[in-house]
């Protein structure tokens, strides 16, 4: 019995030792997606998954698990609380994930994560229906100044990127619009197409193919986008606002340097793969890579902006 126990202990110890020495990954990596299958974040994750497997190498297997609810907060909380061993990573949406730390009780903070890579940067666009008489950004601002609040502006949700865009626009131009939150982007776009609101804020990926019914006045990015090549940036219109929806990947805080490096390398190689870029273009995902420390700084900048908005004009 005693010998048996010793043998068992020894073999268990050997197993632990070999586990520590073994090359990551030696089992499935779970990728938690905070939205249902078929949504924008899910499509991004599923497009990226085969490339990530390929570049992690060693026969890595990434398993996607959809944990929808509370606009991604349930999944992101699970990532924050997971073992930091590299076998749990998750999708990460900005500014939403950080905004939730302000407007709700969240079981995580900006320090709960290892920031791997932000992959999608989907800038906001200011739009009007094609049937509208407002055809330029200058005209929109003019009309808003003439009769504050007369222009209704459709957005998808409070505390999201388009809401922040709305507040930044009002601040930068000292105008007043009437906020109409539809809850999600599809009904917002429908209401704009049908002329039920005078203007709206969408993301550039959401207007592809809708040129016949939606007019894009300006885009809130540094440079003009390949998805809307002829649209002026807000900056070129004299409005200093850059804003959009960001989607990336994080792991729990405390990842070992070795695993972190391996994952970041895999994300970089994925991003540089022309096939991946083509796949992202096909699924209307405007890409822009921010890796590791850059991603963390991007996150902090988003949090700072969200805090400023929350202090001056809380949305609930």
């Amino acid at each position, binding site marked *: 019995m005693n010998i048996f126990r010793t043998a068992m202990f020894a073999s268990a110890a050997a197993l632990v030792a070999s586990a520590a020495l073994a090359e990551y990954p030696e089992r499935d990596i779970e990728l938690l997606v905070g939205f249902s299958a078929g949504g924008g974040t899910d499509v991004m994750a599923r497009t990226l998954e085969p490339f990530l497997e390929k570049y992690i190498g060693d026969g890595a297997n990434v398993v996607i698990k959809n944990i929808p609810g509370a*606009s991604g907060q349930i999944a992101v909380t699970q990532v924050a609380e997971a073992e930091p061993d590299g076998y749990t990573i998750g999708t990460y949406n900005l500014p939403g994930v950080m905004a939730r730390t302000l407007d709700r009780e969240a079981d995580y903070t900006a320090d709960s994560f290892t920031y791997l890579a932000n992959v999608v940067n989907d800038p906001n666009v200011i739009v009007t229906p094609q049937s509208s008489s407002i055809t330029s950004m200058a005209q929109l601002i003019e009309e808003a100044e003439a009769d504050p609040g007369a222009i*209704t502006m459709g957005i998808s949700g409070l505390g999201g990127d388009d809401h922040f865009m709305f507040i930044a626009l009002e601040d930068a131009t000292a105008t007043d619009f009437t906020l109409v939150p539809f809850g999600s982007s*599809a009904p917002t776009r429908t209401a704009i197409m*049908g002329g039920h609101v005078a203007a709206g804020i969408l993301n550039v990926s959401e207007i592809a193919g809708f040129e016949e019914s939606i007019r894009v006045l300006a885009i809130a990015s540094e440079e003009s986008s390949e998805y809307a090549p002829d649209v002026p940036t807000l900056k070129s219109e004299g409005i200093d606002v850059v804003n959009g929806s960001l989607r990336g990947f994080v792991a729990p805080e405390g990842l070992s340097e070795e695993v972190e490096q391996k994952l970041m390398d895999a994300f970089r190689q994925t991003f540089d793969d022309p096939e991946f870029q083509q796949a992202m273009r096909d699924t209307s995902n405007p890409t822009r890579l921010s890796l590791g420390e850059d991603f963390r700084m991007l996150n902090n900048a988003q949090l700072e902006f969200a805090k400023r908005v929350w202090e001056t004009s809380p949305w609930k």
Partner: protein
Amino acid sequence: MAISVLIPFTFAFEPLVALGLMAGIYNGAMYGGAIPAVLLRIPGTPAAVATSFDGYPMAQQGRGGYALQVAVVSSSIGGIASALALMLLAPPLARLTLLFGPSEIFWIAVFAMTSVVFLLGGNPIKGLISAAFGIVVSLCGSDIITGYDRFTFGHLELLDGINIVVLLVGLYALPPVIDLLQKSSSPDASKASELNAGSFWANLPGMRRFAKTWARSSVIGILVGILPGAGGSMAAFLSYNEARRDSTNPKDWGKGEPEGVAAAETANNADTASALIPALTLGIPGTAVAAIMLGGLLVHGLQPGPMLFRENPDIVFGFMWQFLFGAMLLIFLGGSLATNNFARVLLLPRPLLGSIIIALMLIGVYSIHGRMFDVYLMLGFGLVGFAMDKLDYPLPPVVLGVILGAFAEQNLRLALRIGRGDWSILWTNTASVVLILLTGAVVVGPLVMRTIRKWRRTKNIQGE
């Protein structure tokens, strides 16, 4: 439900194969919902609630097999009509969708609620209490307009509101299972022997008498399908109601009238393909399922919207043909193979049947979001449902309240936002006025008809 579980499987296929699979699942699931609704009074989908009104009494009278045969033929006809509408009328119908803004959608919800008040039946006070309970449940979650959380009690799981399937399974499935287990342990032999309704093909010609109901319900289903946010359950309730109103023997409805099954099943399948009209042409999902299918298209690099028809006509029209063939196949597969076999479920010993249903309920509800919270919530609703059942409170108004309550409320508030607080926004456009008049007609119509009839009768008597 089935479609969100199965859609990741389709991502691996060629686009057209994947879309065919989605179309098949969509059509099949809509009919599949009718099977437990008829046999056990447990609707598999919200859209099958109206099917259980007459389907379950039929099963109790030993005509369950026939009810399923009527359901499969009606489903198939609704599906075919809808696929044809999608193929022939997509562009003009899509433009109709754009006419509906928040104020018009609010009136649609009011119209639907008003029309189905007739469904309350029995004790109207109890019906209204049930409906009010449903509306309270629908308000649960984060309010989109102010951002405040309502009735969430600090639970993240409640922020998006309560999933209708969780409520439906608890409310509808648990009470009959408890009933089932309370009774004797052997299956009801007398009913079981009558189960076999005779050959499907022999019964088919006799169903021609439903032709009028099929036609009317198809039109209702198609129209409701293209309206944003309404969905199959509203189509089924409205068409059940219209069919009953037109019937020569409205008193028999709810007691096992096959025409009721036909009306509900035609309409809830007629909205499947038509819900894809705004989805494919405008990128607007008419129902939750259509939204999932839009995601499925996107995975295959197909951007839904006006350009889809121009850039990928082979895929779009291939998809439509698949819908049409899927609906036709339903008759052969669902009809001749499965229907009688499904009805045999009732031959199982009660404890076995009850345990299987409970296991399936738990798995089904868990797999919606992959969390136990929904399972506990479902069991809670099950107790509420059991109490309501024993106290004779009707369940359908709860479902209607959940589906239409918050829907009407949100759109009313959005409309008032757009009108900057001015209520006149609710009646200053043509579509709204038409809907208000329709709603008024539903309320006043029967009264006027009765008065006219009475007046004629007294005149006749005087004449004599």
